[in-house]
């Protein structure tokens, strides 16, 4: 079979995305992540006063604006040496948790699951039930997700005023207290969404589901609840072979999700930060100083090797005729390619079910998607506990008065977990304004192009070996990439590589 070069456009992701994929003997042998759109946010921040980041940077991304606001706030607090009161941390966390639940639900049932209604799966045993659940605007899971994803973000509005794009976090706290009335409203929303998740997605009690600890227990759970959205997804994903493809980089990065208001010696976050390496010592501590970004294959002014984001620069240098093919930089951790997202979060934190499944079948596309749903259920529990803790301490302050002169020039970093994984803002303030602002989004890690050593990024790796049954409709590639919940609007700014081999076909999936 001749070597084919396919150009695949992908929608149902946040933003536009194109892949160049080389297929030989029915399998992907090489992939390049090619996207679109350079917006230049980091340049817009230069010269603005520090607090403007609280308004401008949420607009980087419509689906994770609260995460960007939080990262910007942490970076300013890091630069100024501010530790906000506990209630501020709880309120920030509640809004980010609600945003992540919203995103995980919409990604799963509006962006990922509709692919299982594709005519290719017309003969699958669960066909009728899958279409009945996941068909856009008709299926019950699709319609109910539209409704309940709206409900959960009411929590952000309660505490932050609106979603998307609020600016309720500020160095030293949040702009409004969580009154008892807001807490009761928030608790009631968590209850309502949890009940729906229990009845329609899981088919059982949330705590019992979270107590499942190994692959066999999961199989038993699913076998006894075949009509739930989770069981239907599982059947459809396995029928499509997603449990055997798309593993990509085995190394995973988690910045830690939701700092605890009262950290202990053993635990700093609801979901702990770390780096998953597998093997005998599977998790090692996160060392942010080891992060750098390469531009060898990116359309930015070249520099050798990698640069830490605090020394980073973003100077566009559009060279479509060169071997550079990307508007994205290549982030690396100790020169290694990392993947990030819910699978990383739960493996690092030690969810026994996800670790058991990972031991059994590795980090495949279906496990990645299952981890996203599993994390969403953890977050419902965290969110309930967060409201309970806020209720107990509702008279404590939500903001502190900053001492005069604290807003000095300096440098800082804000690292956290957004819906799609590790998000970082790195800032430098000079003469009262930003002279450097660097953002590395989760999708930057996953969708990275090749680095200075020529090593492909995680997605580029995850497609190698993926079977392409029909080169005119390579649905398998769409499954693998959508299992990552790509968010191209943030960062990924690739353009056409111009490299051509063999027959060239422009496709959409």
């Amino acid at each position: 079979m001749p070597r084919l070069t396919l150009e695949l456009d992908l929608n149902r992701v946040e933003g536009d995305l194109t892949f160049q994929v080389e297929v030989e003997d029915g399998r992907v042998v090489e992939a390049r992540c090619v996207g679109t759109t350079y917006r230049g946010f980091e340049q817009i921040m230069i010269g603005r006063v520090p607090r403007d980041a609280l308004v401008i940077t949420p607009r980087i991304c419509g689906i994770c604006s609260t995460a960007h606001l939080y990262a910007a706030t942490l970076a300013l607090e890091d630069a100024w040496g501010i530790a906000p009161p506990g209630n501020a941390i709880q309120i920030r966390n509640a809004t980010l948790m609600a945003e992540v639940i919203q995103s995980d639900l919409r990604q799963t049932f509006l962006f990922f699951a509709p692919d299982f209604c594709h005519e290719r799966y017309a003969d699958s045993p669960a066909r009728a039930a899958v279409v009945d659940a996941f068909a856009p605007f008709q299926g019950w899971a699709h319609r109910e997700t539209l409704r309940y994803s709206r409900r959960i973000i009411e929590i952000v509005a309660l505490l932050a005023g609106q979603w998307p794009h609020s600016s309720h976090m500020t160095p030293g706290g949040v702009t409004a207290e969580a009154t008892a009335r807001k807490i009761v409203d928030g608790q009631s929303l968590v209850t309502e969404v949890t009940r729906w998740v229990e009845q329609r997605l899981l088919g059982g009690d949330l705590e019992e589901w979270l107590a499942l600890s190994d692959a066999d227990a999961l199989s038993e759970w699913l076998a006894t609840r075949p009509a739930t959205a989770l069981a239907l997804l599982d059947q459809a994903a396995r029928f499509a072979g997603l449990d055997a493809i798309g593993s990509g980089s085995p190394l995973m990065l988690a910045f830690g999700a939701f700092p605890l208001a009262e950290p202990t010696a053993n635990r700093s976050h609801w979901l702990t930060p770390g780096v998953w390496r597998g093997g005998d010592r599977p998790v090692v501590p996160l060392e942010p100083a080891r992060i750098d970004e390469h531009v060898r294959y990116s359309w930015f002014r070249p520099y050798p090797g990698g640069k830490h984001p605090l020394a980073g620069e973003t100077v566009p240098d559009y060279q479509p005729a060169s071997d550079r093919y990307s508007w994205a930089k290549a982030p690396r951790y100790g020169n290694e390619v990392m993947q990030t997202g819910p699978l990383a979060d739960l493996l690092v934190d030690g969810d026994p079910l996800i670790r058991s499944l990972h031991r059994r079948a590795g980090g495949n596309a279906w496990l990645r998607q299952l981890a996203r749903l599993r994390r969403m259920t953890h977050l419902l529990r965290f969110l309930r506990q967060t409201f309970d803790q806020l209720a107990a301490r509702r008279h404590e302050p939500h903001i502190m008065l900053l001492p005069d002169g604290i807003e000095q020039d300096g440098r800082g970093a804000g690292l956290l977990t957004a819906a799609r994984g590790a998000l970082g803002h790195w800032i430098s303030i000079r003469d009262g304004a930003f002279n450097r602002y660097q953002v590395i989004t989760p999708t930057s890690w996953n969708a990275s192009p090749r680095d200075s050593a020529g090593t492909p990024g995680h997605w580029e790796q995850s497609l190698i070996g993926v079977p392409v049954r029909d080169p005119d409709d390579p649905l398998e590639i769409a499954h693998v990439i959508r299992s990552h919940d790509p968010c191209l609007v943030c960062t990924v700014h690739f353009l056409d590589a111009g490299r051509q081999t063999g027959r060239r076909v422009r496709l959409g999936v």
Partner: protein
Amino acid sequence: MRLLWMQAGACGGDTLSLLSADHPPLEQLIDEGLELLWQPSLSTDSTRRLTQIIADIIAGRTPLDILCVEGSLITAPRNTGLWDPLGGRGKKDVIAELAGAAQYVLAVGTCAAYGGVHAAPPNPADCVGMQFTRTQADGLFRADWRSRSGLPVINLAGCPTHPNTITKALAFLLRGLALELDPWQRPTDFFTTTVHQGCTRNEYHEYDVEDTTLGGRGCLFFNLGCQGPLTLAPCNQELWNSRSSKTRAGVPCFGCTSPTFPRDGNLFRTEKLGHIPLQLPLGVQRAHYMAYKDLAQQAAPERLIDRKMEP
């Protein structure tokens, strides 16, 4: 009615706002007969199909009732638009052709309407809006451009557009309710009320009880950059996500429905002349406002001065 939604230089926030609308929700419009020819986050057809849909619309084979444009129109480099390409062309050029075939063209969000955040200095990607660039009446199209219905681009301004403004405007079109536009081409049904109106901090403003730092209960207009009294938008008249608004939650209004959003300078500071803001509430005379505020401050009750009222 057939709707095509194009995303240009965007964060996706207006698509998420569309999904967040609850009065009416999107699915109700679809049940009622709104046909999504294409929506980048929701369509299940392959993107090959989009190429075909676009060709059919431009050739006149498929009538297009509503074109929604989300995001700034990227014109870099050198007016080619290739920093945001579609099928080897600048997406802005594809959008211009589609607009020529559409009955109604909606700029959904301040980016598509006026350039928005991406057009803020130094405007790295040379962004413009559909028919404006910031306050200048010239964007992808000149001021005299009209769609097939005879209307110019309809600007559903906001960053993002209020969720229910999107679905209500679509419902107006579906149900044949006429849209009247203000000088910034925003439908007057949504843009005659200030954000200030309905703000639960109004009584603080009334008696000039003004906060100087974030996190308090008072008014944010005098010191903290709030644009509520000068911004036309329904945020405090029709609440966000059925719950609240930024100002109710202590976040200043940043004037995101205005062509000048985001304004230059410090977004959390009110520029003042003496002790009175430089920019006054819409249409108010400085001398009158000064007299009113001095009197109001003297009349302020203790319960407000002591911030007893929960906004």
